[in-house]
């Protein structure tokens, strides 16, 4: 109860104009970045990361929360208007939103998307606020061996979630773990893999890894997509203008969708969010499939049914609340955005985990208040105030945009250490990530391997030391056994069992948004 009261009292912080400015600016930047195909909220957060050195930690975390929420709903703008989801989480929205746009109801489709996002995002944030303290308390029961099994579980699940690319994902996860071992050993005074380079003695900083992996590699990919950009600009310019009065969905339409659809989709999204590696696209997909399955008119889906939009958008925004659960309670990020939020915390000397929720919840509460505020107020307000200008905003000149991004990324990597060495390392890691992405090696597993590596090593060594080197300790310790069994279950369902297939009446509308994934 104390934590819930703290979250609600944190709303008072939003009365501070500086904090409110960063939260609103974060939301607007997140919406724009997720609306433009090729840019993501992850990239927006990666670029913001260097600035958090100068910002107060509370303000930085509140801005991160609003960017995260915006990133989940902003993708619906181009998904609806030109059938190219700005973010992967809006893939299912395109299936219903674009047919609505074709029959002149694009603004209404965006209204439904925004309303669904508001419901899902708010309920997801509330679930997080209510449940996180209990999960944190339960997480205190997990001891050294269990912690090792838990981190291994998270890493393995993220790898097997990259279905079709599991071996490549494993290789990049190993590369991330290798990078994490560079520098002084945490348990013995020994420098590892520094090759006599003094700058490497303290290890590789998180900043070059995040900026290199998400910003530099994105620039390198986008510089080769000039023709695609021109085509998207043409499509956007040809789109019908959106009118403010058309954004508000009629009450009858909301009643027709049904409260049950919103609630069920929110719950699906939240549960999916708690799983490592699943993310908004998986949440939206599963909620959409469930809505089609239980609908009385399944044949109406794929032709502009607002229920599909409501289901997908409620679920993908509810993912935000769910994804923060493992990050805050165990220190395990499940996707790139939560990994960067974790980075912001670590940079500011905060170590997520059960102790954080127990002793430092005053630092976390404002972030959760910002998440709820963004979902409840900023999603509908942004659509209503900025909606008519969305199409103009996303047709912003790419050379100007990428010129600014390149500058922010490279100079941003200088900010952490004032070191040209770190700038060069950012570039090298960016080139490596670019080559990996070009050849379908997932980079998310590299980042999570790098982030989880130090704890995995520490708990593995401690667990084996405590058991005199007996690896059977992972089976004989109850908390560890629980996570080992959970790992086996997830590997079966995500890696071995046949995936859920979406049956669609119109294959054209199904394939187009998938083709539109530019550099995500």
């Amino acid at each position: 109860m104390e934590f819930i009261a703290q979250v609600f009292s944190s709303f008072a912080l939003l009365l501070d104009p500086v904090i409110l400015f960063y939260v609103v600016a974060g939301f607007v930047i997140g919406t724009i970045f997720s609306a433009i195909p090729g840019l993501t909220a992850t990239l927006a957060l990666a670029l913001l990361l260097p600035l958090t050195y100068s910002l107060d930690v509370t303000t930085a975390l509140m801005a991160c929360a609003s960017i995260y929420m915006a990133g989940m709903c902003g993708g619906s703008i181009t998904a609806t208007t030109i059938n190219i989801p700005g973010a992967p989480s809006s893939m299912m929205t395109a299936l219903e939103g674009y047919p609505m746009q074709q029959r002149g109801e694009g603004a209404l489709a965006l209204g439904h998307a925004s309303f669904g996002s508001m419901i899902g995002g708010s309920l997801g944030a509330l679930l997080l606020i209510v449940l996180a303290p209990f999960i944190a308390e339960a997480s205190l029961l997990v001891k050294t061996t269990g912690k090792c099994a838990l981190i291994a579980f998270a890493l393995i699940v993220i790898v097997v979630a990259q279905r079709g690319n599991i071996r490549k994902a494993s290789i990049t996860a190993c590369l991330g773990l290798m990078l994490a071992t560079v520098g002084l050993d945490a348990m013995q005074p020994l420098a590892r893999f520094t090759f006599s380079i003094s700058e490497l003695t303290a290890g590789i900083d998180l900043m070059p890894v995040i900026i290199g992996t998400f910003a530099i590699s994105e620039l390198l990919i986008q510089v080769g997509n000039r023709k695609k950009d021109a085509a998207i600009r043409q499509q956007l310019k040809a789109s019908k203008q959106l009118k403010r009065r058309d954004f508000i969905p009629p009450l009858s339409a909301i009643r027709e969708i049904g409260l049950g659809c919103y609630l069920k989709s929110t719950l699906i999204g939240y549960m999916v969010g708690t799983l490592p590696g699943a993310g908004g696209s998986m949440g939206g997909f599963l909620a959409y499939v469930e809505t089609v399955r239980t609908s009385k008119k399944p044949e109406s889906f794929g032709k502009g049914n607002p229920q599909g939009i409501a289901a997908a958008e409620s679920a993908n925004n509810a993912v935000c609340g769910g994804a923060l659960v493992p990050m805050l309670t165990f220190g395990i990020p499940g996707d790139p955005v939560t990994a960067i939020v974790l980075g912001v915390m670590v940079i500011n000397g905060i170590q997520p985990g059960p102790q954080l929720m127990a002793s430092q919840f005053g630092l976390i509460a404002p972030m959760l208040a910002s998440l709820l505020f963004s979902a409840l107020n900023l999603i509908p307000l942004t659509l209503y105030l900025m909606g008519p200008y969305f199409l103009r905003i996303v047709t912003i000149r790419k050379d100007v945009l990428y010129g600014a991004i390149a500058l922010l990324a490279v100079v941003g990597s200088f900010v952490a250490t004032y070191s040209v060495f770190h700038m060069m390392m950012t570039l090298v890691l960016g080139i490596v990530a670019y080559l990996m992405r070009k050849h379908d090696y997932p980079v998310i597993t590299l980042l999570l391997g790098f982030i989880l590596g130090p704890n995995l090593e520490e708990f593995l060594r401690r667990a084996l030391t405590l058991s005199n080197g007996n690896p059977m300790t992972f089976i004989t310790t109850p908390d560890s056994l629980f996570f080992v069994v959970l790992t086996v279950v997830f590997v079966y369902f995500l890696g071995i069992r046949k995936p859920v297939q979406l049956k669609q009446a119109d294959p054209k509308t199904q394939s187009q948004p998938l083709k539109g994934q530019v550099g995500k």
Partner: protein
Amino acid sequence: MSSSASPTRRHWLISGATPLTLAMTAISALYLISAFQMTPPLDNGRLTASFFPALIGIIALVLCVAQLVSQHRASRGVAADDAKESSTTDGDASAALFSPALRLMLVTALYILAFSHLGYLLSSALYVFVVMLLFAGRDKWVSKAVIACAISALGYGLFEQLFNVHLPALDLSALGLGNGG
């Protein structure tokens, strides 16, 4: 026999993801060797600083080799189109040498090297200008130059003024214009 086998091997080794997988195999092998050279993974039954790296190195090496074998097998499946694809690959490889991505890599590397000597403002304005040219071609270059200067100035305001980050200034001595002292 040999003449038909040769292009298949060449295709497999130089095209697609193979060079990257080969590089990662080499990195894994070097990492593993370095881990073993550091200290033995077990010392009197105690785990040492090289235990975890050795474990990861072995797993990475096995995975990379498995990936190489898988790519080799996949390349056999397209052996029939080999000669045609080989020539296309050659074309792609030479085109890739001058690809926009490679140019952006080089420009960024040059920017980083010039950053502390030319100072933030000058090097950044030049860098943003070249990045804009890479993204949108050379037309309207004057307006691009003006925008590049404006972006650099905005960046200066953001970092130096708003976030109190000390950015390097122009080093005249590095250009041979100062007193050199």
